[in-house]
């Protein structure tokens, strides 16, 4: 069930599937995506990042509404996706083979 984003960010709704609450799942989605898909998400979300940060700053971390949480998770995904798009031009970091490095503990939001 895709998360609904705050109405100010309706233009990002086609990418709401990137509103993923855990780092491992964000990473798995990146690795399973094509560069075209990653680029499309980046091109849509990166220019709206400052708007999103300003929007999210009106809340403290303890009382983020659900749609704001979704927006935060979507921008966590943008962090994950920025590496291949900005530098490597491939979904996995170069020279990492099949190695994995998994989050076993992370903040709830």
């Amino acid at each position, binding site marked *: 069930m895709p998360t609904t984003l705050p109405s100010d960010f309706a233009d990002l709704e086609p990418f709401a599937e990137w509103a993923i609450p855990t780092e491992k799942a964000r990473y798995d989605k990146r690795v399973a995506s094509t560069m075209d898909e990653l680029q499309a998400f980046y091109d849509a979300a990166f220019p709206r*990042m400052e708007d999103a940060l300003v929007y999210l700053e009106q*809340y403290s*971390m303890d009382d983020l509404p659900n749609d704001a949480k979704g927006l935060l998770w979507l921008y966590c995904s943008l*962090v994950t996706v*920025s590496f291949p798009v900005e*530098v490597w031009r491939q979904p996995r970091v170069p020279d*990492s083979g099949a190695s*994995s490095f998994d*989050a076993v*503990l992370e903040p709830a939001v």
Partner: protein
Amino acid sequence: MPHFAKPAEGSWTEHYPELGTEDVSYHDSISPEHYELEQQAIFGRTWLNVGRIEQLPKVGSYFSKEIDAVDTSIVVVRSSKDEVRAFHNICRHRGNKLVWQDYPGEETSGTCRQFTCKYHAWRYSLEGECTFVQQEQEFFNLDKSDYGLAGIQCEMWEGFIFVNFDPTNTTPLRDYMGELGKGLEGYPFGELTQVHKYRAEVGANWKLFIDAFAEFYHAPILHAKQSVSEESRKLMEVGYEALAYEIDGPHGMVSSWGGMAPPKDLDMVKPIEQKLRSGLFGPWEGPDFGEMPPGLNPARHKAWGVDSFVFFPNFMVLIWKPNWVLTYHYWPTSYNTHIFEGTCYFVPPKNARERLAQEMAVVTFKEYALQDGNTLEATQTMLESNTPVKTFPLGDQEVLLRQLHVTARRYISEFQQQSAKTPANA
């Protein structure tokens, strides 16, 4: 000409003459027999960090920890006397693992009033005393006070919980941490409660990963593709020089410059780093904790960025200028495999902007670690291969590697000398 001053002897390595400067053998990283000796001489006898006090927020909070290197599982608990205690995770009745959930081999944590064995409901207090035996009358003169949990020495340094499996150990943890540990006392580790922890199974000897993180000589090369290309070229040209190295007893540290938090010129970093004001060196705007402990930035250099402490045998603490902390643990599982844990600690973010700046630092660390871990397997397989190449030169920026391997071998020879003496004394 070095960019940063070296000791009068001309090099960091020669400043510590016991380390030598000759090529070194990596036989200590490819031999099952040598690993068995390390298990006894090192992991069975030194203080090992198993967690932090924040993992035990109240009386009855506990966590279990699997420690392959000493072939055991332990449970660490905040006792009813508000002390942190550690026990072997074994029921005194018939040896069942006492604390586990669903999968006996997996670590777990929680809160309880007492420990109850899943098998026959024997119970133990948080102090480890046996308090209940099911159908006690069926046993033969059983005195419950003889069947408490097997305790392990457990002490704390700056909120880090350590255990020592050697019952004859008489060195208090604080003494063991030495001058380098003392120099960090007072750092507000307890304020950094926002935790991201990662874990990887790595196909390499545990010391090889410490090697990788105890030198930054590799950073401009192995991680070249992580930076914007102009910056990457410059980094490669300049190479890497530390601000300072210090060695004290079995421990060591390297102090490094930190030009990227913030960078001199925004074009040096990626677009998302410019926006989030964060990257490998952490969020550019960290909390101000006032005066820092004297052990940080020993060269008192204005370009200081991060200090990496290698506490023997398997615990590293990195303290970054913007006041966040990264710890590394290397838990051997065989002579050529280990579990690597990397944990990032930040002050809790006040808002989503700070949260995302922290995410940027954490994920950057992850991407670097993926490259490091994979490269180690390439090193391990070749060290083990049938090759005439048996010794390897270590440069001055690799002085902590020399120190690690010399120290690990010294622990083994001391252990062997003591073991040889024991029968005569017995």
